[in-house]
């Protein structure tokens, strides 16, 4: 399914994998997360504490939101009072109220569930955060809010990010390096650096850069877009 992939994520670096649906992005991410083991090839990770945010929030429906956010902490053996305190603090920064924290996930709106899922991932202070199209189902207002939260937590902890997305604008906005994948078999066909610091990327910059990006022949080929006239 995947062929000749050499992917390396440095400490504190944000790498985005973009590519059409079905090109093997999720498989690659699951390999990196250790949820799948490769048939051939090897995966080496020196990240001590990876965390992942999935496309769906995937909160445990029988645990209240506070306990869901503290799940990773509980797995690390943090005592109850301490993990509740940390989870509540993080949740407050994520815009969740005490009332939300006492609810079961089924009673939260989709946006609140996503906040809780992001908080759950950040709760363990991950040095590598894996994002599996984590924001793709959210409205643009919520997206930009979560982008800001992500950027804030990243600068606070210096965690590396490996994200997959089919949203080029998201990749341009968040990543230091963008890898373009194409399908059958899945392989990396291009790599682009984005040197502007994340904090300096305003809306206008993101729009301009994405528009420029989508004109590049390798991206058009990967997404099977027709070549541009006169290009």
């Amino acid at each position, binding site marked *: 399914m995947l062929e000749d992939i050499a992917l390396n994520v440095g400490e504190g670096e944000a790498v985005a994998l973009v590519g059409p649906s079905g090109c093997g992005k999720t498989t690659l991410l699951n390999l990196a*997360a*250790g*949820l799948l083991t490769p048939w051939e090839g090897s995966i080496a990770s020196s990240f001590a504490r*990876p*965390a*992942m945010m*999935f496309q*769906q929030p*995937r909160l*445990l*429906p*029988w*645990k209240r939101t506070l306990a869901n956010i503290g*799940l*990773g902490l*509980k*797995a*690390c053996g943090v005592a109850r009072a301490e993990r509740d305190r940390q989870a509540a603090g993080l949740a407050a920064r994520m815009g969740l109220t005490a009332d939300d924290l006492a*609810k*079961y*996930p*089924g*009673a*939260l709106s989709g946006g609140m569930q996503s906040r809780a899922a992001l908080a*759950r991932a950040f709760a*363990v202070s991950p040095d590598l955060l894996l994002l599996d199209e984590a924001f793709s189902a959210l409205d643009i207002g919520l997206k930009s809010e979560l982008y800001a939260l992500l950027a804030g937590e990243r600068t606070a902890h210096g965690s590396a990010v490996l994200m997959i997305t089919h949203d080029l604008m998201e990749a341009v906005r968040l990543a230091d390096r963008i890898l373009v994948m194409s399908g059958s078999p899945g392989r990396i066909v291009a790599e682009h650096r984005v040197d502007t610091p994340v904090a300096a990327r305003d809306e206008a910059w993101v729009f301009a850069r994405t528009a420029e990006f989508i004109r590049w022949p390798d991206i058009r080929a990967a997404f099977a877009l027709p070549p541009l006239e006169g290009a």
Partner: protein
Amino acid sequence: MKRAAGDWLTASGHYLWSGWGSLASLGIFLAIWELTAQQLGPLILPTPIEALGTLHGLFASGAAGPEIAVTARRALAGFGLSVGVGSLLGLAAGVSMTASMMARPIITVLVGMPPIAWLILALLWFGAGDGTPIFTVFIACFPIIFVGAMQGTRTLDGQLKEVARMFGLSTWMKLTDVYLPHVVSYLFPAWISALGMSWKIVVMAELLSTEDGIGAALAVSRSHLDTAASMAWIVALVGTLLAIEYLLLEPLKRRVESWREFASSSN
């Protein structure tokens, strides 16, 4: 402790309060019983009042209490055994694909085997005494609970299993925080139907194999052609079963599964 008992009472109270509809249907049932009994006469079918009167007499003379206790002890022993063994083995079988495939034909045989056949075997193995009814109850309830536990484990969302692995949950945490909360929604219905089953089986086993218990008392009242006493024992039997199910298991189920109601009602 005191608070837990208070919670318990509140949960039972809520449950009973929500049961007015059931009470009404019970009333209709009693009315039909009364009418039929008036038509058929006391030798064939005593009225509810007569049956309850006889039962009251049995309690007053001290005959009913010990027999009910003996029967309850046997039924609960067999039921408890199958809850323990069936739940554990079912959970284990659900985790492994191979184990569940291997278990399937055995379970089909166990479910298909009529309890009376087990009773005959149990009589040969254990003779007259506690062993026979307890074993028969155990073997009849076991497959129901086993299948419930196995189905519960098998149907756990694979996405949640990934979450558990991603966050490095220990085996114990996977069991208590991920598997069990999901599995109980399959286990509880299985436990409740097994409990009903155990009450039916124990009386049948006692009727044929023992000298005491409700089943044996029924055998005696039958040989005396005492329909009123037979009905009284049947009422005692069903009453005990209902009490255990509605005062113990249902409130427990509501408590454990409270997240379901919160999740569906407040959104």
